């Protein structure tokens, strides 16, 4: 019982360490990917830049890599990745041992709600492509506030004034012709 308790306590401690350091690296086969910001707040329509660093902490050069950005909704909103970014996938050249490279994605917050945005690294070498393993970064928690930008009242001046003006002009042209 003491052993089980000890194990549980150890697990909880590990989780606490992980939760306390949201930007901490996940390591597998020497590749680490970290994101710069743990949290971003935006309003719907805002453009956001997600920055990440990929490090090869191994002793040999890595295979070519694929870095793929993902967006997962925490509030059940349907997310179409194509709407957030047209280019979620980037190709990374083989990294030398202990080298680091920086990556960034420009995305647009097109849905309101809370989302986790994270990067997944996949090997894409001749022998490792399709096999994995995948390495994921910590998520960036993106909170997007909704905004009602289109309303009937705001559009009324245009919707009424433009046809009125043009109708008046058309009528004026006709009357001018008749009067000649």
């Amino acid at each position, binding site marked *: 019982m003491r052993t089980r308790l000890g194990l549980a306590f150890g697990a909880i401690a590990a989780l606490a360490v992980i939760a306390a350091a949201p930007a901490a690296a996940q390591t597998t086969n020497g590749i680490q990917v970290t994101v710069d910001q743990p949290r971003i707040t935006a309003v719907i329509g805002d453009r956001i830049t997600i920055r990440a660093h990929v490090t090869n902490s191994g002793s040999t050069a890595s295979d070519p890599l694929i870095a793929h950005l993902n967006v997962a909704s925490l509030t059940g909103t349907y997310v179409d990745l194509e709407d957030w*970014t047209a280019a979620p996938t980037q190709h990374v050249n083989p990294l030398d041992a202990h080298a680091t490279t920086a990556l960034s994605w420009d995305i647009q917050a097109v849905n309101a709600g809370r989302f986790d945005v994270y990067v997944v690294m996949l090997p894409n070498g001749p022998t490792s492509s399709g096999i994995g393993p995948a390495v994921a970064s910590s998520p960036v928690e993106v909170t997007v506030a909704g905004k009602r930008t289109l309303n009937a009242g*705001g*559009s009324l001046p245009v919707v009424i004034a433009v046809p009125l003006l043009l109708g008046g002009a058309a009528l004026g042209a006709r009357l001018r012709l008749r009067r000649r």
Partner: protein
Amino acid sequence: MTTLVNGEIDKTATGRPQSRGQGDWAAVAGQESRDLWLSGRGPLLLFAFSVLLSVFTYLAATNRAINFLEQREAVDQTLQIAVAVGVLVTLLVSADAISGERERGTLEGLLLTPVSRRAIVLGKLIAALTLWFATFVVSIPYIWVLGRGVSIVRSALLLGLGVGTLLAVGLAALGLLISALSGSNKVSLAISFFLLLAVFAPSQLPGGLPKGWFGDVLGKINPVGSGLHYSTAVLVNGHGWTRDLEYLISPLVLAVLAGGGLLILSERIVRLNPGGER
């Protein structure tokens, strides 16, 4: 009256005009535009177009369920309507420009002036294009209302002006070519209508164009479909401005070929009898 000087008529003494020059495309464009706008046709078309846009905008504005993406799509739709209507009226006006004058008996008077045939078609082309630009200007306030909350007004306006102008130039030039070569105004207008159907119909197919290389080629060949695809890719799908440039190739080719062909062939095809003298 006349003054005789050494037995020759001295016209300088009469005060009559000495100009033996020739007018240019600007004179033709100016008068054709005045005829188009002051006769009431132009303002009436614009009024009808504005009513259409007003209905569309109001429906979008009262739709509480419309979200960010759908609002962007609404802007894209407005742009497509503006391009479609602008290009339609421009094509129809240019399809009437020469064959219509032949039938109304006014072309001969124009051919009897020293204005070159090239200047005549250029002037008529510009007058037809005023319809496109007027349509675009009318759509600006609607695009602003729909697009200001989703930050795409400037992109939408630039896209509309660029893609729409390219299409309008190409189709107006094509309309003038058809008009010059057609045996009657009815034939000219019928061919132009058919042309419009051919360029707009594929986008209305259920499920859109066929998938695969054939659908892809068909989509890129059709200048209207291709141009509108480009604007949707940038406005709705968030693509970069240079990513889908190949979709602008067919509108550009149309504008260059039709416009260039019109100017080069004008001396031969702008005649009293359609298709030249035989």
